[in-house]
């Protein structure tokens, strides 16, 4: 076979570039659709809700219409804003403490098999205690106010962080730590250079779980023993049978939860792109 037959120019090249453009356009359309889809679904669900409540004539104190909830949000925007700010602050304080404590304890447990065996069962026992039951005790200790709420948010959210960070560090491939140990690395070097970076995807996964738990914690505490916050507002509203306002509280809480989740997601995409091989994590 003559050798120069292999270098005949491919006749499809020009065709190929227009096809590439078409593929790129299709990908763009798909990305746009993916971006608006959650909003469309939410709107559709709200519309269905509105129609159902009107159609079946459900009384407002059982299930208010979305339009009534919106009206209530407009009417009570000032107390909603103030109380949600209060809830956000206690949650953020509790959550920040959970991150600091969770990272420290998770690192310690993950890098020492002694602590792993000794502390892990104790932690699990602690986590099995229903935290709601602790809130009255916290109120006795710290009085009515933001402190029990922040502590409850902390108590509910630190455990997933500890477990995930510990798992990430404890499951470092032995060969990977051998590479460093054979260089004379100290245990702290291995944790810093391999353990912690490797645990970061686990850490961010746990943040998404525990940010929701933190909101649950602070709102529960506010319903039990507080005179401010969304939880308190919802208790007061439900005692007056102002159900649209209760739902308005729920909406505000959901918005705050989603915003915090989005923040965690943004930090995650910036810091651990390597774990998803350059693709943004869902």
């Amino acid at each position, binding site marked *: 076979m003559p050798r120069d037959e292999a270098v005949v120019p491919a006749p499809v090249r020009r065709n190929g570039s227009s096809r590439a453009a078409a593929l790129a356009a299709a990908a763009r359309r798909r990305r746009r659709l993916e971006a608006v889809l959650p909003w469309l679904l939410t709107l559709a669900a709200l519309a269905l809700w509105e129609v159902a409540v009107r159609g079946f004539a459900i009384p407002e104190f059982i299930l208010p219409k979305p339009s009534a909830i919106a009206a209530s949000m407009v009417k009570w925007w000032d107390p909603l804003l103030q109380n949600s700010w209060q809830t956000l602050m206690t949650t953020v304080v509790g959550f920040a403490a959970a991150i600091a404590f969770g990272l420290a304890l998770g690192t310690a447990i993950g890098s020492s098999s002694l602590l792993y065996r000794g502390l892990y069962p104790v932690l699990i026992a602690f986590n099995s205690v229903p935290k709601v039951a602790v809130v009255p005790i916290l109120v006795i200790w710290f009085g009515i106010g933001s402190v029990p709420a922040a502590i409850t948010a902390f108590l509910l959210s630190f455990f997933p962080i500890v477990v995930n960070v510990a798992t990430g560090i404890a499951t470092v491939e032995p060969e*990977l730590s051998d590479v460093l140990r054979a*260089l004379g690395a100290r245990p702290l070097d291995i944790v810093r250079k391999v353990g912690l970076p490797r645990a970061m995807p686990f850490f961010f996964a746990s943040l998404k779980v525990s940010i929701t738990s933190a909101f649950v914690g602070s709102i529960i505490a506010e319903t039990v023993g507080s005179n401010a916050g969304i939880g308190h507002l919802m208790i007061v509203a439900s005692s007056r049978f102002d159900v649209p306002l209760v739902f308005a509280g729920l909406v505000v809480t959901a918005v705050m939860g989603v915003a915090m989740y989005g923040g965690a997601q943004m930090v995650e995409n910036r810091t651990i792109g390597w774990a998803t091989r350059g693709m943004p994590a869902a």
Partner: protein
Amino acid sequence: MPDSGPARSARQDAFVELDGVEVLYGGDGGTLALRDASLSVAKGEFVAVVGPSGCGKSTLMRLVTGLWPASDGNVIVAGREVDGPLSIAGMAFQNPTLLPWRTVLDNVMLPLEVVVPHRGRLRRERAAYEAQARDLLSLVGLAGFEQRFPWQLSGGMQQRTSLCRALIHQPALLMLDEPFGALDVFTREELWGVLQDLWLARKPTVILVTHDLREAVYLADRVLVMSARPGRIVAERRIDFARPRRLAGTYAAEFQAVVQDLRDQIDESRRGDGQGAGDAA
């Protein structure tokens, strides 16, 4: 019992010396990985260790680098009894074991952040060290890939990066545990050449563990044959082909004869132990 095996050719200038070493995994009644293993490697020598799988070759690596203690016997490296991890060793394994959150360049420079004389200087002399790393990468044909991440590279390129990482701190001792075992034949043979060039340029002492006899004969000055578990060195063979060796040479009759000879010795060592536990990995 005094072993009269050919491996006991202890010399004055030995850089790595094992003397009657025994390694027991899992405490009393555990697995005996090495028994009465003795060998000595001269400074700057390239030694390959071959043997049936599960014979304790990897144990040998961990032993010499101080990652695992000997239950009995002496391990001496660079004139000192090994009692903990060495910092003069570079290691590469069958898996490239690169850190996926670091670029190729940062992966190669990892040892510099850990090994004692360099870790203090790295911050001040970063540019000089980085130039060294880039030189090393271009030596193995990875120029232009410094800012890529390991997962963006092919298996062979990852393994080259791993070799660079093992060499960046200019270790006196290079320990390679089947570094090319997971690669396809073409990449593997290409990397033999790369490794030979690196060795000829710097002349570290190399201990290469492999189950590929052609690889061992192509690369090494001396091939040691290990018996089935519990492993010990049962035979050794000096390889005197001129350097640099060429890949074409591996198809020459005298090369094939050496390989065949080694293969026979391994078969013998498996039969000799009467258990043929070839698959006890």
